């Protein structure tokens, strides 16, 4: 393994220091949500203990402090994804709300009957259903680009599905069910050649690789805090300023207005126009702390370490008879989705849990992906930077043992 401070990192995560069913916890459900380092937990606790008040409202000291911390976190997000301005960073509840926001504002303003949104066959439900709802409201049409048996986007088919009716391309950066990383740069270049904006669902990609929204030139980028070692209940919608400015607001309420009378309301400027009501202040501060934490380690180092973990896991899994990996894209993040011959993923999940190993068993909110591979569900081990090669050994031994028990 590369020179990666795995022991130091593990020590930063209090939850990892426990046993489950008398076995050391092996947490491999990171694609569902990641655990939190002490610094994130402390940042939120510290806010509540010493600095908490509502933001953007009071002249009193605590309000000023809270506002500074809140806006400071926005600046951290901006730097983390290299946006050109904090005006382009909208705080949401998570990736799901970010995509729904785009569907209900940009979508409603720009799509009419017969217009098309193009997605891929590997999307999470959160990048399918908001568009179906929009389609119901506007008469727009959802187009789906196919994937191949490796779980890779079929690019030429994707290209053919772009038409003069396409108003938005919305694709996942990295698939949660398969681990496939999409050729997003090619997708963006292709779409932009026809003046079609592109939204990237970055929920899975963001903790695993460095993301530069200006280099990518994507129009929207959505991600969640809780998959990036930050708290749940907070996410980010990045949007290009001119597009966000042209969009109608999402929800109405406090903070998103500049002037209200009963006759007329003037909306606030970016990014506040899209942040109605008191925001999740502590969660934003926690996300800022998480960004500081991963930035100090370095996203490129994290990516390199996780690539080694995945390669090791894939190689070990190949030695297990009856194990089939679902998703074998050549560009792939640290997710090992698999099925075992004649053993249902749910049984795998319960059996591994009795050994202290947490994996996900199910359809991973990607039922169309399950249908494509003709499996009801998969077992999924998803890795984070705090996982070790030894934990993968424990997983593989567990799988071998349960295969024996099921006989």
């Amino acid at each position, binding site marked *: 393994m590369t020179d990666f401070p795995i022991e130091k990192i593990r020590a930063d995560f209090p939850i990892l220091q426990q046993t489950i069913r008398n076995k050391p916890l092996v947490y491999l459900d990171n694609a569902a949500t990641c655990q939190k380092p002490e610094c994130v937990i402390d940042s939120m606790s510290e806010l509540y203990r010493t600095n908490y008040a509502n933001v953007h409202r009071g002249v009193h000291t605590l309000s000023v402090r809270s506002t500074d911390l809140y806006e400071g976190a926005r600046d951290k997000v901006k730097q983390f994804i290299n946006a050109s301005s904090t005006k382009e960073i909208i705080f949401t509840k998570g990736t799901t709300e970010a995509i729904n926001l785009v569907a209900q504002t940009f979508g409603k303003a720009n799509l009419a009957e017969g217009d098309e949104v193009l997605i891929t066959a590997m999307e999470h439900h959160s990048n399918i259903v908001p568009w179906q709802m929009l389609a119901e409201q506007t008469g727009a049409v959802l187009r789906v680009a196919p994937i191949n048996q490796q779980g890779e986007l079929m690019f030429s088919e994707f290209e053919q599905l772009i038409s003069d009716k396409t108003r938005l391309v919305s694709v996942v950066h990295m698939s949660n069910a398969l681990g496939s990383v999409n050729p997003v740069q090619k997708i963006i270049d292709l779409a932009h050649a026809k003046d079609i904006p592109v939204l990237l669902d970055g929920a899975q990609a963001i903790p695993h690789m460095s993301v530069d929204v200006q280099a990518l030139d994507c129009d929207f980028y959505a991600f969640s805090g809780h998959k990036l070692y930050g708290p749940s209940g907070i996410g980010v919608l990045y949007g290009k300023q001119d597009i966000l400015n042209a969009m109608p607001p999402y929800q109405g309420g406090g903070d998103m207005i500049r002037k209200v009378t009963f006759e007329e309301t003037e909306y606030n400027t970016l990014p506040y126009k899209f942040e109605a009501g008191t925001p999740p202040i502590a969660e934003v501060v926690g996300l800022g702390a998480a960004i500081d934490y991963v930035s100090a380690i370095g996203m490129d180092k994290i990516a390199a370490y996780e690539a080694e973990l995945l390669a090791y896991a894939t190689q070990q899994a190949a030695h297990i008879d009856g194990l089939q990996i679902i998703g074998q894209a050549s560009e792939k993040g640290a997710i090992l989705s698999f099925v075992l011959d004649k053993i249902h993923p749910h049984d795998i999940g319960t059996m591994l849990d009795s050994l202290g190993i947490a994996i996900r068993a*199910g359809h991973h909110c990607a039922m169309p992906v399950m249908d494509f591979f003709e499996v009801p569900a998969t077992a999924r081990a998803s890795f984070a930077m705090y996982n070790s090669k030894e934990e993968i050994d424990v997983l593989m031994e567990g799988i071998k043992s349960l295969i024996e028990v*099921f006989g």
Partner: protein
Amino acid sequence: MFEDLRDLYQEVIFDHNRNPRNFRVIENADREVEGFNPLCGDRLTLYLKMDGNKITDASFQGSGCAISTASVSLMTEIVKGLTEDEAETLFQKFHDMTTGKNEEVSIDALGKLAVLAGVREYPARVKCATLAWHTLDAAIKNEQSSVSTE
């Protein structure tokens, strides 16, 4: 290695999972209902042949985990010959057992179905065991053509 799981995965369950009973389609079934557990993707179709209010044959098709397969397999064996009311009573008892209500009374009354009592300790797996019975309940009530655990 899996000592903790002995109560959940008893040998009878492995046996029914490997060799499910009544795993077939009943042609001209009087009732045919699909059961679905969206949490895990388990899906089964239950077929009943009726003589008046008596269940004369029961069978199923579908795929699921060991717990749900064993549960539906055992159920199709045990409900054969029961009246609708008797089957409904059994469903109530089974439900009480798997959700931990009246456990002592109901386990005695359930005979071989008692092998599924272990799910009580695994809240995430209770629905695996009860999917078959909710499907039967819908089939008896003849209300819908599909039923979901959620």
